């Protein structure tokens, strides 16, 4: 099977190691992965800001780059959800491709559990880790159960992390509260965004974690910004980096 690798724009530019870890992990698990070099961005920053109508060229570029793969995998719940919910082609003849992409796109952890059905991982991460439940992956893609629903618990990223040797996952006080990044919200509503981020970080610090992980680098980038400003020793690490870690 062929996998088209979709790397979020901010991961491409600021956290290339997450893209590298994702690629290496997928290849280790037997996937034939190709990164279409013409990709840029899913268009979510504009769409969430009310400018969906400006995203059509982004959409067309996405369809052009990702048409034809068996699966498209992305190390971001938020970007994956955006494509799944909002991708359309400008011209009718490409719309079938757009719809096909919406059906074939997966966030990394759900791809591993649901498609590759991974049961074991050769991975080691002997640290105390707090898992941040990024909202769009959780409530949008249902990669883990949300505390709002009266329903059985489950967690696809959790399932994978539990396969990692030496890892100690902590239970937080507020299991799935939003970190406050929210796209352009992070600068448009700076005061509330930072307060939300500080509170999330405080929950992890209260439980003495060494690392904060999650499926979305955007959330982690926002928390990292706060951690660094606080001169904390706690670091952020994307789940791909943990699952790919063998030292």
């Amino acid at each position: 099977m062929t996998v088209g690798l979709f790397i979020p724009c901010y991961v491409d530019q600021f956290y290339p190691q997450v893209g590298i870890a994702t690629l290496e992990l997928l290849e280790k698990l037997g996937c034939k992965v190709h990164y279409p070099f013409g990709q840029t961005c899913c268009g979510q920053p504009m769409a969430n800001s009310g400018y969906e109508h400006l995203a059509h060229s982004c959409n067309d570029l996405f369809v052009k780059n990702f048409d034809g793969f068996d699966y498209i995998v992305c190390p971001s719940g938020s970007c994956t959800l955006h494509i799944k919910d909002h991708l359309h082609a400008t011209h009718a003849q490409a719309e079938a491709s757009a719809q096909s992409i919406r059906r074939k796109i997966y966030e990394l952890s759900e791809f591993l559990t649901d498609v590759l059905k991974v049961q074991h991982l050769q991975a080691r991460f002997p640290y105390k880790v707090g898992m941040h439940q990024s909202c769009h992956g959780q409530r949008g893609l249902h990669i883990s159960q949300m505390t709002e629903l009266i329903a059985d618990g489950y967690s696809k990223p959790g399932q994978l992390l539990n396969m990692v040797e030496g890892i100690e996952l902590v239970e937080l006080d507020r299991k799935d509260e939003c970190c406050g990044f929210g796209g352009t919200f992070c600068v448009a509503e700076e005061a509330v965004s930072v307060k939300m981020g500080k509170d999330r970080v405080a929950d992890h610090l209260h439980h003495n974690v060494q690392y904060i992980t999650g499926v979305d680098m955007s959330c982690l980038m926002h928390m990292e910004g706060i951690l660094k400003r606080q001169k904390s020793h706690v670091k952020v690490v994307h789940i791909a980096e943990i699952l790919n870690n063998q030292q």
Partner: protein
Amino acid sequence: MKDGPHNHVDLAEQFNADEARVNWHDETLWWVRQKRDKAAWQVPEWEQLREMASQVKLHTLSNLHDYLVQFEQNAQRNGITVHWAADAEEHNTIVHGILQKHGAKKLVKSKSMLTEECHLNEYLHEQGIDVIDTDLGERIVQLAGEGPSHIVLPCIHWKKEEIGVLFHEHLGTPEGCADPQLLTNAARLDLREKFLTRRVAITGVNFAIAETGELVVCTNEGNADMGAHLADVHIACMGIEKLIPQRKHLGVFLRLLARSATGQPITTYSSHFVKPLPGQELHIVLVDNGRTTQLGREDFRSSLKCIRCGACMNTCPVYRRSGGHSYHNAIAGPIGAILAPNLDMKQYADLPFASTLCGSCSNVCPVKIDIHQQLYKWRQVLTQEGHSPAAKTVAMKGMAAVLSKPGVYRFSGKVGRWFMRVMPWLVNNKLNPWYKQRDMPAPPKQSFGEWYKNREAGKK
């Protein structure tokens, strides 16, 4: 109208100036969310109940015309006088008209968010009529000269010491007294006198039943009943979307309402008014005020399912850290943000953006309103209608231009990172809102794309 900022961003920033207070406000409301969770877990069929409630409401909205007619017929047959108000002004005029007919200058009012929406208290005050809000939380904010900050917990933003000061001034409680029991007792005595002496009572309506023409009013305090059963005139004010088809549907809604709102299995009182007392007049004012417009909006009409429980506010991480008044609207929080733009897009254009679209609200909503999806859709509508700042449009057009051209994107990324490494002060400064309280991410020498390109080149 107070001076100062009128948009959520600025009001929220003001609210965040006192971090300890934000923590207190946030923790109090999070605790209410947790009480809701605990109560919901006691009902194994909770998710089915939500789905049932959603479908009953959707059906009702799709047959609202006939249900309104049926309700009116049944209510009138039972001796209730039915009035129709197209907008807030007409609602206020109708209420005033009833008061004038009875020569009433004083009345008691129990909680009605509809009357807040219509600014009834201010209107009646201007006509020389004295309205006393009898719900304790509403009485507190009334004495303070404010509006409620939460639809169920009106003075959640007030500390008990501050209430003590207010009551010392207005009710004569001892100075420095901040004990909730003593303060409540003082309000009980003061308001009891009002119930016993005032001849007109206004209440809200939680549910109206088309099948029987009855009204249901839910309170914990008993203030709606103390007012209504001692009055010569009971005026009930209701938005037209509060209708449900049959009495038995109350089984669904009364099981969801209080559990969602406060974590109680039911409010202390769920009063079913069918006929006026002998010698009493019972009026109902059915209010549109933009609801028929919202009904016609395909993407937003399901916001009319709302039963005003406030669960969305309790769970919203933004609401908890910005406070109800930062939404500058009678109804705050996530539901307020999808209802208000329908009435005035210009005034409320900021509200749908006061959110990270986390989706928590939609999943606690007892009637399954897709609130976070409506927030997204309102953003598109408001932008298309021209309620977006010009600078934002310019920035977004710029972003679209860069992101639609891979070569430009890669080049801009490379250049941006170079500047960040070599001249960090360009972004690490006061002009960059990110930098105010967060460090910028470290700019790597190579993007993922560049690394991949090298790897592929190395393979050849």
